[in-house]
């Protein structure tokens, strides 16, 4: 797919010496949902700020839609939308006027029909003449999305769109993001909710301490780093691993009362091996009373990668 955004050697060092971005290289493809995962202070918002013109990079280049953001920023920015993490908007303004202002700010002619369409799609039409301060937190966040969509961007940044919102609203937000994807908008989503990335993203990037640790297709990442873990509770404790099952990646635990399998690659290989292991146990006359299996989630991968990053640091 065509690259829509290309970051090359992007670094940002704040005046206090904090290195918020450290030589980041990243390419975003047209039409994808890219989730940037990282703990608080990892550099996610700085990366967005650098692309959107809020943060001045210390070094590196940013190209959006083929334009160099340092020189052709007008053309590039006109196609980028940003929904910030904070609920930052003029709270005294009515919803429709605030959204119309955003469209005008980006140099587009007034289009009441388009504004109505956006407000309706975000269930804000009934609130169009209400002051933003009178809306609930979830509605305010939708207003920010409406403002970001008012100039019909091709690339949309959503900085922690579901931070601090309840489960129902989070699901509603996912539906909105899905709908935007359906309209062909490329979305870059920052989050520290792994579940969100797992649900929505085509590709995932993991960032910590300003370094992009890994970027991959979500499914490929799961396949490459995913693991199956099975705990088999034995009917009788074993003193050592019998040779019949020694070729499996297993070990005894809990004083020999439980057998732990850790293996697979996230493609289902682990499940098949666990099935083969249980057959081998039966053939060997080793009885068991329970099996507990689980596939590692993106969260496990995330935690593991962060652990490796910290270990290396």
């Amino acid at each position, binding site marked *: 797919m065509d690259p829509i955004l290309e970051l090359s050697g992007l670094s940002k060092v704040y005046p206090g010496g904090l290195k918020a971005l450290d030589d980041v290289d990243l390419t975003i493809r047209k039409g994808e949902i890219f989730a940037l995962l990282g703990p608080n202070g990892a550099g996610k918002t700085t990366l967005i700020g650098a692309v959107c013109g809020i943060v001045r990079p210390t070094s590196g280049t940013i190209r959006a839609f083929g334009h160099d953001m340092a020189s052709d920023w007008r053309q590039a920015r006109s196609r980028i939308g940003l929904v910030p993490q904070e609920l930052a908007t003029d709270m005294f303004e009515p919803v429709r006027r605030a959204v119309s*202002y955003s469209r005008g700010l980006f140099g587009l002619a007034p289009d009441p029909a388009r504004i109505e369409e956006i407000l309706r799609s975000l269930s804000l039409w009934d609130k169009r003449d209400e002051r933003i301060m009178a809306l609930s937190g979830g509605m305010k966040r939708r207003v920010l999305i409406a403002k970001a969509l008012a100039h019909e961007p091709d690339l949309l940044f959503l900085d922690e769109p579901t931070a601090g919102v309840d489960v129902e609203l989070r699901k509603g937000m996912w539906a909105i993001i899905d709908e935007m994807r359906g309209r062909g908008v490329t979305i870059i989503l920052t989050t520290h909710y792994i579940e969100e990335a797992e649900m929505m993203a085509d590709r995932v990037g993991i960032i910590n301490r300003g370094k992009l640790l890994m970027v991959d297709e979500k499914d490929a990442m799961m396949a490459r780093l995913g693991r199956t873990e099975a705990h088999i509770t034995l009917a009788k404790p074993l003193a050592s691993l019998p040779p019949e099952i020694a070729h499996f990646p297993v070990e005894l635990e809990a004083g020999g009362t439980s057998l732990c399998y850790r293996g697979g690659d996230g493609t289902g290989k682990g499940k098949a091996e666990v099935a083969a292991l249980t057959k081998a146990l039966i053939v060997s006359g080793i009885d068991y009373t329970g099996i507990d299996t689980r596939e590692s989630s993106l969260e496990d991968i995330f935690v593991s990668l962060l652990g490796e990053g910290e270990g290396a640091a």
Partner: protein
Amino acid sequence: MISWRSTWSIYTRELMRFLRTAFQSVLAPVLTTSLYFIVFGAAIGGRMPDLGGVDYGAFIIPGLLMLTLLGETTSNSSFGIYMPRFTGTIYELLSAPVGVAETLLGFVGAAMTKSLILATIILVTARLFVDYSIAHPLLALVYIMLVAAAFSLFGFILGIWADNFEKLGIIPMLFLTPLTFLGGTFYSIKMLPKPWDTIALANPIVYLVSGLRWTFYGKADVDIGLSFAITLGFLAACIAVIAYIFRTGWRLRA
């Protein structure tokens, strides 16, 4: 290339912000001007001599106009840019395809418009108390617009420099207002004893008040050319500072 739609959006939004507090914005200068005329015009003015053939009540009109103009223009413009920084809404402006031209024309244009509205209100209010005429109305308008532009830019710089509300108010309160009061608003510096009449010339506001007074009555404490030159110099200095701010992103972009 400048985007006029973006400029218009910023300009109209800033004016809407002004209109949200229209009652206060209009009533405050009317009340303040009336009080000055009651105190200085009626109570004290009767005991003052004519100043170069101009009745004291009429004499103070340009000074009062300048007093309100400098304070309101600076405060409107500084709040206009400071509040988005304070609340975080500046992200939208910074991420939009707008540059220094759109931003300045929008914010400063709106602050200038508000100043012209206020100037009109003050002049109409003054007319209720004093009979006066303006010798050079076109020059007066140009001069008011120049001063409004310069102090809108100055306020814009203040609004970017300030990182708390105290800083936002400290320059207008501790420097601008005292200098305006000491800048010949209510008197001619020729009335001052020596060496204060000479020392007063170090106050830049003297040239602004004097310049506006010249456009009203054709006479003033300092040469009108010098007043225009100082006003234009201040305007140019403010533009240079703002150009630097936008070029470097100082206090605007992290």
